[in-house]
């Protein structure tokens, strides 16, 4: 039976408690760094998604010249698959390009292999995707991965090696340029293999390299699968402003969060009201668990009728932004560090459980 951290701590002498507390503090610090980096990665991801999406937003030169328009955010999300960030649709021939954006890559092989699985999923569930889009989709669906220009050669090589039908869009974020990466000598094979687009116009525009006009402006503020911390900061800052204007001492309800999510995402996703309700509930569960929101009506059962407040200092929106972000990271870091601290303590102290062979066996399986 696993003891909770507090229960375990109670069993120790004062001296040993001190050792465990030191371990906890060290583990929390490590987890904190990991979490902060995750949140940073999420914002970097949002940046490259917008960089890519802005080429295809209404009125932009590529959208006008090729007919491909930004249509869907995370097109597979309504099918409970979190692959692909953007769906670009060309109405004239019902052609769809699913685009995955990566701001950094740690393992090229793993990335391409994951993409391969996502491609199979998208291809196999094309009829469901058609329902999301509300339109027939021409065969085959095309795929693209937008990666930092430095990573493009390695990603491309891996795609060629594994023969995956993916176009590589190389984004130079500092120079603000995007270019399709591939073998320009043998375009016929490249098109047949899915590494160049079938639309010659799109190939030629992307082939010469394009400069965005809108750069990294956030046409897309959040994604359905954005990091919980990104969502909480976004929602809290907007709620703070809204409740400040209405002068009701920062009180808000479930519907306020739901409305923010729907306003940001409804017009560009195939998500249903139930999907949004699930996301809103998820946000509330996390925010309450981590003391980011305060429940002012504990006697009321129904979530939709409850009244909440943002916890902590609410001097201004910048304070709210900081506090929400920091509370999320601190709370999560401690939570994740608790159990690992016990394990590390036991390891460092050379403690072996009578039943430890069981978990060793399980790990080997």
């Amino acid at each position, binding site marked *: 039976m696993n003891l909770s951290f507090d229960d375990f701590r109670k069993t120790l002498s004062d001296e040993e408690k001190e050792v465990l507390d030191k371990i906890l503090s060290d583990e929390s610090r490590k987890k904190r760094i990991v979490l902060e980096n995750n949140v940073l990665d999420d*914002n970097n991801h949002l940046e490259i998604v917008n960089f890519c999406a802005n080429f295809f937003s209404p009125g932009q030169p590529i959208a006008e010249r090729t007919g491909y328009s930004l249509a869907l955010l995370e097109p597979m999300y309504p099918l409970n698959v979190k692959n692909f960030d953007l769906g670009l*649709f060309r109405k004239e021939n019902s052609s769809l390009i699913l685009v995955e954006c990566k701001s950094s890559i740690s393992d090229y092989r793993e990335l391409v292999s994951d993409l391969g699985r996502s491609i199979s999923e998208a291809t196999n569930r094309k009829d469901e995707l058609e329902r999301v889009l509300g339109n027939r989709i021409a065969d085959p669906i095309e795929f693209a991965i937008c990666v930092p220009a430095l990573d493009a050669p390695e990603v491309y090589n891996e795609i060629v090696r594994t023969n995956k039908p993916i176009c590589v869009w190389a984004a130079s974020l500092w120079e603000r340029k995007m270019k399709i990466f591939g073998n320009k000598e043998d375009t016929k094979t490249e098109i047949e293999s899915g590494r160049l687009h079938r639309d010659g116009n799109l190939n030629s525009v992307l082939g010469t390299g394009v400069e965005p006009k809108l750069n990294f402006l*956030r046409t897309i503020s959040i994604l359905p699968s954005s990091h919980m911390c990104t969502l909480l900061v976004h929602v809290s800052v907007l709620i703070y402003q809204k409740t400040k204007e209405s002068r009701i001492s920062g009180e808000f309800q479930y519907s306020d969060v739901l409305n923010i999510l729907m306003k940001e995402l409804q017009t560009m996703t195939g998500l249903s009201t139930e999907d949004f309700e699930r996301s809103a509930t998820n946000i509330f569960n996390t925010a309450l668990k981590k003391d980011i929101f305060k429940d002012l009506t504990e006697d009321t059962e129904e979530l939709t009728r409850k009244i909440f407040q943002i916890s902590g200092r609410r001097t201004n929106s910048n304070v709210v932004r900081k506090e929400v972000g920091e509370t999320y990271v601190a709370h999560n870091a401690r939570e994740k560090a608790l159990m690992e601290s016990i394990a590390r303590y036991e390891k460092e102290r050379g403690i072996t459980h009578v039943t430890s062979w069981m978990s060793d066996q399980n790990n080997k399986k």
Partner: protein
Amino acid sequence: MKIPFQEYTFASFVNKILEMDFPIQARLKVACFFTQFDRWGTNSTFSLWALFNSRGFHIDQMGDIHVLSKLYFDTALRQKKMATFYAYLNSESRLLLLFTDEKSEAIDQTVEEMAETTSGIYCMFTGPRTLQDIRSKIVESYPSSVCFYFTAKHFSQFARKGETRPHIERTIVYYGDDALKALEEMQQYYGVSPRIMRYRIPDVGNYEIKSTGCFTLLKTEDPIPAKQLLLRLVDWTSVLVLRSRQIIERSDFILIPLKTEEKMFEIPKLIPWTVKFSKALDYSDAESLVESMVSEGYTLFNYVMPKGSFRLNGMVLDEKKGNVFTIDVDSNRMIIAPKDKISFDAFLRFFATIVENFDPQATVEEFV
């Protein structure tokens, strides 16, 4: 200043102002505000009339002129006093002119305070570049004119640093007939940027021009031409500032429908405007820029500011006017786009924030 109660056209009101004798201590001021409205619109809930009314102003009408009154706290008398403004709204430029002889603090506590926090109105912000253009215009029209006073500020976040202790925040108030030369020197040595300028125009009068778009006739021995010049100063300045407003007003947020066979999506179309910086920025300026924004009630959230050369982008909440927009900044310019329908005055305040707190020589540019 008490204008006889009767129906006025703008022309007859100006004539009345010109011919009236003001008490010796009274200083005629024209405080200028850009608004979103081309009429007062008494019946509408979102109108200039409703705006003033909701902020506790008492409103009387005298034809084209509206009389606005509101209490303020007179710090010298240590008591509340009633401030009165004679307001004219130009339906074409949507410029609101407030004629008054009230103290500056009366304007600050009433209309200025409202313009900082309300959507639909903002002061006719006159940055250092425009102040310089007016200076040239005055010198050109009145070669014997003398700038004899200025106040100027320096903030540690300024992108262009002065040569002397650039980390020190400072305000310089200067009296002297060499004020123009002194301002140049102090810009170079102390990095200050002007907020208030005063000119003496021989045989006409002494004038004060504030960056908030408030013009004062300080002193005159020949009131009629002096008052006429006061109005001309307003006119010159409004033409210069109107250009920025027009560019800002072209920015927009539109949802473009995308119809598939069975569904309808709406894709945001961002139409931005830009702020061009007066010097190429580097990474160390990024934090100063964020600080400048935060100090004026803006919150940058879910943003990216990687180390290296200048790259900063994300979402911005304007806490004072209650708007959300998005920015993308590189070393030369900032692109700004609304994330909803935003009244131009919110962006005018944002531009004023950048100019007054970060880059005094920045300009509003068309997005290309």
